[in-house]
């Protein structure tokens, strides 16, 4: 440690805390902030990733047999009609040229026109994105409302009754396939009990329509996060000294868990969310399909079927951007929430 004291003067030291409070104006402090610099660097790295995703999509899509023209015209079209439409849609040009066109336009904010619907991709996205976002947010809310308290209660008495039950249920929850879960939920709640609709009634956004799908998405997440959080909390209770200090103050185990351990676990939890987001989005594709929700997940499937390249690219771009931004965001949040990093020290 870095004390240098003169004997006989207890308490005085020439140690400088790592940062002075107050002082330089905000914007200058932000510019010097290491967290922001790191964020900026990560953003720069994210761009090639996004580019890579779109390029990969383009390549894969173009390897698909069939094309938008035949999809549009249907099975009865003559080859000439198909060819004519292809030329009209620029589908006969080489891959790189087409990609170049798309990329150029995209960088200007123009995502092109859907080959199938003849609508601008942006407008389609605008219509359908809110449904998916609501679904995902709803699912995440349910997840945290359930898994955080459950993990705390389980960690309070390890290997107790509640702990064993919740761990068993969690294991089950994360082992169920979303499509299986969806159908079972429909069977129980929509068919037998008739509490909630099986297929979406409105155009989306209706809470009742979103509830079963959100639960479907939430259950595997609850399983995962409860186990993860419980493990992290217990780790702190067992091997960290500050939890013992807290207990020695006279706090109950539950209080130590919620006031001390949870704060530190939250930081790790956020990182995990970012990592799992891609999977969550993938799951929405199937869930929207089964429940008949008009979000961009179900749209993606249809678009792939129709070989509707611009639309697929648009949706994939949105997905990838969400994932990349979410990961970036969680990294940033991590840096902000951990006071050790905030004040300029490297992560311990």
């Amino acid at each position, binding site marked *: 440690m870095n004390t240098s004291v003169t004997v006989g003067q207890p308490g005085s030291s020439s140690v400088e805390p790592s940062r002075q409070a107050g002082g330089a104006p905000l914007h200058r402090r932000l510019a010097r902030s290491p967290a922001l610099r790191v964020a900026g660097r990560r953003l720069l790295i994210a761009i090639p990733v996004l580019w890579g995703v779109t390029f990969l999509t383009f390549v894969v899509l173009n390897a698909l047999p069939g094309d938008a023209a035949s999809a549009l015209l249907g099975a009865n079209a003559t080859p000439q009609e198909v060819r004519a439409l292809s030329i009209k849609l620029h589908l006969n040009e080489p891959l790189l040229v087409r990609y170049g066109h798309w990329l150029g336009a995209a960088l200007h904010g123009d995502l092109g026109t859907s080959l199938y619907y003849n609508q601008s991709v942006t407008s389609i996205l605008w219509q359908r994105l809110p449904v998916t976002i609501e679904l995902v947010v709803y699912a995440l809310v349910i997840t945290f409302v359930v898994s955080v308290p459950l993990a705390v209660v389980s960690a309070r008495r390890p290997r107790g009754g509640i702990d064993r039950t919740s761990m068993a249920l969690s294991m089950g929850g994360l082992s169920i396939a979303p499509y299986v879960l969806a159908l079972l939920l429909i069977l129980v709640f929509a068919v037998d009990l008739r509490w909630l609709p099986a297929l979406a009634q409105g155009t989306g956004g209706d809470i009742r329509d979103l509830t079963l799908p959100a639960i479907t998405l939430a259950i595997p997440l609850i399983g995962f996060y409860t186990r993860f959080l419980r493990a992290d909390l217990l780790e702190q209770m067992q091997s*960290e000294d500050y939890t013992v200090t807290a207990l020695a103050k006279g706090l109950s185990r539950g209080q130590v868990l919620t006031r001390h351990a949870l704060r530190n676990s939250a930081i790790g939890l956020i990182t995990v969310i970012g990592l799992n987001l891609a999977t969550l989005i993938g799951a929405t594709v199937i869930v929207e399909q089964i429940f008949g929700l008009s979000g961009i997940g179900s749209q993606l499937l249809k678009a792939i079927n129709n070989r509707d390249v611009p639309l697929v690219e648009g949706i994939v771009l949105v997905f990838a951007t969400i994932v990349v931004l979410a990961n970036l965001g969680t990294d940033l949040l991590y840096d902000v929430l951990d006071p050790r990093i905030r004040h300029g020290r490297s992560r311990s």
Partner: protein
Amino acid sequence: MAGSLGQRAGCPTATSAGASGAGGAGPGSRPGAALLDVSDLRVQFRSRGGVVNAVQGVSFTVEPGRTLAIIGESGSGKTVSAYAVLGLLPRTAQVSGSIRFDGIELVGRRERDLRDHRGRNAAMVFQNPERSLNPTMRIGTQITEAIRCHLPLGRAEAHERAVELLRMVRLPAPERRFYEYPHQLSGGMRQRVVIAIALACEPRLLIADEATTALDVTTQAQIMDLLLGLQQELGTALVMISHDLALAASYAEEVLVMYAGRVVERAAAGDLFGSVRMPYTRALLNAIPRVELEPHVLLPVIGGRPPDLSTIGPGCSFAPRCPDAQQDCRLQSPPLKQHEFGHWWACWHPCGKGDVQ
């Protein structure tokens, strides 16, 4: 239980420098009555190989305002005993015997009662200041948490008291420190904070478990002086747990030596170092490097290792390593008895009088 020091006429008083316990009894206790009375404490942990006997029948008392040092190697059971006094042992531990605080029995108490006791009657200062504080919580909050756990103070009052505590532990700029995080402080400063937390509710007993081991020597001295000073101011009894005999010599009034879960010697500091009886204690003393020794001489270390606590043999647990061990030592474990006034030991063949080389 008899054996309190300095309270009876004609008894040799502690002569070690630097120690000056307040000696006054805390409010509500009768003069001469022990604050802490540990009697035949036994702690067992269940394990794969059987049972680990961490503590095997430990007894001692602490008077209000006095300083006791508990010395021992790792695994001697000193920390486990301390945790038992605070009621901090996990539920997997089986505790038997008696721990009386101010006359109230702690063993077998409900968790709720133990929580009232912890932090309020007795508090602890831990070894690693780096790790004892929550890194993501401000220092001030960690102190006010301790305060409001037991005292019915509002936020503002708790804040004031916390700053007051920081001032008491001689932390410079306490108002500012309140809002800082642990990593912004040095090790010595962090330890002061931990002391502040421990003293938040003015406990009558403070246990310092290797509180200065992780600090450099100069800081160590400062912290010890601080603790002693606070002890005088507040009338708190202090139990120092350490493996450092020199520290005990400088600061404690009474010293307890533990080995393999038992107390093997106990005396006032002056008596212990002046006329050591247990071969183990003597060996510990001899192992302290001294300036008078010739250079390049092998330090006398104690051969062998501490015993496995899951197996209790019949004889004295130190016998395998004791240079003076004899046949009866291996056959029967010597009991701890007050062979001389104010000086207990557990040995069949103790060292002669004045036997410090």
